[in-house]
């Protein structure tokens, strides 16, 4: 058997923490998953005809930054703090207005509570990593009717943003740092996530290994020799590729663009000198540049704390939390002081920041393994893009095991679909849109069942 020779991390999904055995995966997969996909009130009749609920579009943001805490951040130690004998002193809970905040874990983020909103009545659909991550990123059941063709939320945003693209918009509409679990789906590939690994020296994809002048020489020779680029004799797909080459070359040649991906050691240190820190620097730069990027996803892994959750070394909530706090704290500071593209607005005003994982973690005392396991109840943290600070949507009971108040007009759990509708509404995208250009010829909903009001934006955030 290979379980003990680190093939867990090698062979597991990149979003599982080290030490998590396959057995645990199945155990978790086999239990706690009887979440009802369709609430009791729904019957098949509703599938047949939908009355259109007038969509509520906030139109308060230009951009969206999704920070995806892969593995599932523990909500009862962070955004929905529940204190007990298990709470390590390092969390240092403190009262801040109406919330208890883990001031020891998130001191820097805690300085921005005036700008932060929390949803505590969130509920994931599945406690399985790949399924729940995909669900959150495509806003529907991956095993459902359109699961196989659905684009990432960011691709929808990129496609919609095409309508407003200016000649100065040279960057891809959707950029993803550290991976996504969905791509462009059936949308044109140009709306897919443009993959970036943040590095101080810049974006490898934009750097010719043999030097810029060498590339220029080669580029000139290529265009001199390659008749097919002028004649189109190899068909329309090849003509598209020729266009992509030209667009790519423009990115390579633009000093402005390259500058967006580089940063100084000083800056790096300020953001905590970590993967998440580097990634948020680049995310900030891309959005601040206002060159066409409208949706950025930054994935941060290793939040799957089945064990060592309160450890002071290794992968733990405390070590991950410190890095996250340094990074997000710096980001919120920067974004709230930088000018946006509209006079009088900051970059944070124009950017909806959404922080979540694919599900939550078990409540109460920690497990015999020293951690918390998968749990459907979860929290979401939001800022910017019109979101009102110090707003808490929903309330759970004393230990967090059940919801006490949903906290919004829909009076039910907040689902990934609702979060997506919220993002689209903030960006001025009609979340009830049904496209009729899908390969199934069935119709593709931006948010399934949004047309009949089954899912909707959490307007109480605004």
């Amino acid at each position, binding site marked *: *058997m*290979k379980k003990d020779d680190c*093939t867990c991390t090698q*062979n597991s999904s*990149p979003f599982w923490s080290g030490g998590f*055995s*396959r*057995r645990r995966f*199945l155990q978790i997969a*086999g239990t706690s998953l*009887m*979440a*009802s*996909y*369709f609430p009791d009130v*729904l*019957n*098949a009749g509703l*599938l*047949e005809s939908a009355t259109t609920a007038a969509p509520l579009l906030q139109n308060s943001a230009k951009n969206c930054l999704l920070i995806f805490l892969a593995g599932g951040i523990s909500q009862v130690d962070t955004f929905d703090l529940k204190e007990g004998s298990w709470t390590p002193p390092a969390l240092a809970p403190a009262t801040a207005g109406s919330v208890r905040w883990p001031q020891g874990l998130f001191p820097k983020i805690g300085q921005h509570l005036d700008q932060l909103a929390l949803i505590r009545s969130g509920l994931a*659909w599945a406690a*399985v990593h*790949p399924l729940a991550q*995909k669900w959150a990123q495509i806003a529907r059941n991956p*095993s*459902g009717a359109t699961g*196989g063709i659905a684009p990432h939320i960011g691709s929808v945003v990129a496609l919609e943003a095409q309508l407003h693209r200016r000649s100065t918009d040279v960057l891809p509409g959707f950029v993803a740092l*550290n*991976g996504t679990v969905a791509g462009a789906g059936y949308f044109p*590939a140009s709306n897919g996530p*443009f*993959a970036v690994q943040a590095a101080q020296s810049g974006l490898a*994809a*934009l750097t*010719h*290994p*043999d030097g810029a002048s*060498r*590339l220029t020489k*080669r580029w000139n*020779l*290529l265009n001199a*020799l*390659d008749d*097919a680029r002028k004649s189109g004799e*190899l*068909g329309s*797909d*090849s003509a598209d*590729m020729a266009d*992509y*080459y030209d*667009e*790519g*070359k423009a990115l*390579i040649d633009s000093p402005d663009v390259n500058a967006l991906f580089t940063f100084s050691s000083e800056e790096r240190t300020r953001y905590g000198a970590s993967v998440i820190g580097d990634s948020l620097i680049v995310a900030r730069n891309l959005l601040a540049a206002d060159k066409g990027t409208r949706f950025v996803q930054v*994935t941060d892994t290793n939040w799957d704390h089945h064990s060592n959750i309160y450890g002071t070394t290794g992968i733990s909530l405390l070590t991950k939390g410190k890095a996250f706090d340094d990074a997000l704290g710096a980001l919120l500071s920067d974004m709230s002081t930088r000018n946006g593209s509209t006079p009088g607005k900051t970059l944070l005003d124009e950017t909806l920041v959404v922080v979540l994982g694919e599900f939550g973690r078990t409540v109460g005392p920690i497990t015999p393994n020293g951690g918390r396991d998968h749990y459907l109840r979860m929290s979401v943290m939001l800022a910017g893009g019109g979101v009102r600070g110090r707003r808490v949507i929903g309330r759970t009971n004393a230990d967090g095991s059940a919801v006490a108040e949903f906290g919004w007009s829909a009076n039910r759990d907040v689902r990934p679909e609702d979060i997506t509708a919220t993002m689209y509404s903030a960006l001025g995208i009609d979340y009830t849109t049904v496209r009729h250009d899908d390969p*199934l*010829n*069935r119709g593709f909903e931006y948010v399934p069942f949004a047309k009949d009001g089954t899912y909707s934006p959490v307007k109480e955030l605004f």
Partner: protein
Amino acid sequence: MRALVALLALLTSFVAAAQDCTYDPARVAGPRQVMRRLSQTAEAVAPSSSHRRTSTAPAPPKYPIRNFIDTEVFGLMERDGIAWTSISSDEEFLRRVTVDLTGQIPDAATVRAFLADTSADKREHAIDRLLHSEEYVDRWTLWLGDLVQNVQSASNTILFEEGRDPYYFWMRDSIRANKPYDQMVREMLATDGGSFHDGPANYVVRQWQNNGPIQDTYDNLSAHSGEKFLGVTINCLSCHNGLGHLEQVNPSLVKRTRQEFWRNAAFFAQITLKNANSDDDYEWKVGTNPAGSYQLNTTSGNKTVRAPTQQQSSPVLPAFLLTGETPKDGENRRVAYARMLTAHPQFARATVNYLWKEIFGMGLVEPADNFDLTAQDTQPTHPALLAHLAEWFAASGYDIRALLRLMVNSSAYQLSSRYTPGAWQESYTRYYARHYPRRMLSESVLDAVARATNVPISIRVPLIEEPFTRAMALPDTREPFVPQRTPNPYKTILDTFGRGDRDTNARTREGSIAQALEMLNDPVITTRVKTRIDTLLASTHDPGAIADELYLATLSRKPKDAERAAAIAYLQDGDLKANAEDLQFVLINRLEFLFN
């Protein structure tokens, strides 16, 4: 003088051969409908009168009718007045057929030998050589692996490498041995065993639904087998009837009901699927419980409520969706389903259509997963051809190698990808008036870079001893499967060229800016360029020889005279090594490297 006589004799014999062309419009079978049902992706075809050749346009060249594919394809173009292009050159043909059958480009020595070969049947011999190569096994294992989504883990299930690998090796062995495809499908549908030992048992494991009742798994099996083995997307019926939903999706499913879907799924309701769930034993055991049944008693999971109605009591008894046939007395349900499915003509039709699509770029029915069973005279672009191919395939014993051989030997396949009769219209695409150029698959791109530069790749896959030297041979589309930010030099290029994840992200040949950046800036390419030139310059400094070798190895052809002159001029202008590297780099970035 003697040489001239010999040459004349040779030319005369060629002319004579051309006059042997046996094209005869009367041999085109069957009447045609003038109006055709439009496929999703092809543009509208104007009424045929606007495509009639004028009397001043030259007649398109005649080609040997090699088999009934040519009869039908050229026949339809004749009928509709579509001019077809010239036949491919030897260079164009060899590269294309090598890529299409094996996923690899031919190496320079093979190209040279083929060009020098004067035998009349050299194309047929090249085809047979390719069909019996190990690289052929790579390519069609990849095809089947995509079709059944063999992957280590997915959003709904997990095979583990220990399951994925035997499944992969079973596919390779079956394809190498040319096992009848119907037998392969029956094995996938009906094998009981341990997933780490009995490869095809992983078909069932792949469809396990990890977040719902077991009926969701039975539904997945019914839906997947319907889609991929019968070419009909029946998944919609797993939640609701066709009426009121599928009118725009598939007219042949409008009158079908959810109950019928359940009856189809009931064939899978005696499966047992167990996992001991321990660190020492996590193999899936696929078995049969003769007392199992499809109960209508679910209120959660991934489908709408399952409950008995007046029309359908619980449990649901099995009946094959396409025929209503039920299992024989005492017959194992999955064996029964496998028997019925593979015997049904739609199995052959769907399969030949999938394979046709791989070779010709678009299916005779598009989308290939969505046959309208009530419109088989009009939905296919060539209805008689599809019918004939399906019958032929079934009669051959579902012989994949033979079918591929038939297709690539046709003149229709061997038409050039350049269109010379006039201005190309996209509406000609569905006539196969040219071989429509398309981008190589992701794995082929990486393998082509390695082969052109003669610097192999090496990818280690855990649990498999030998490292992989061809990306086309990788056991799934997520290898190398590395944790976040662990560098693997091959992962970026493979993922960027769209090989998909065999889960919810389908493989695509679509382009992107990221792909262009890969071709320009990936060190996987630039380091190989350097190594390649170092080696080449050790054997020659002659610019002409360098140009020839680079063209042959990279683009599978000799440089045209103007290209050769330009290359020589470039090579001689300054540092030979740097210039040769530039030339090699540029040839890899020419559009015809990726598109053929």
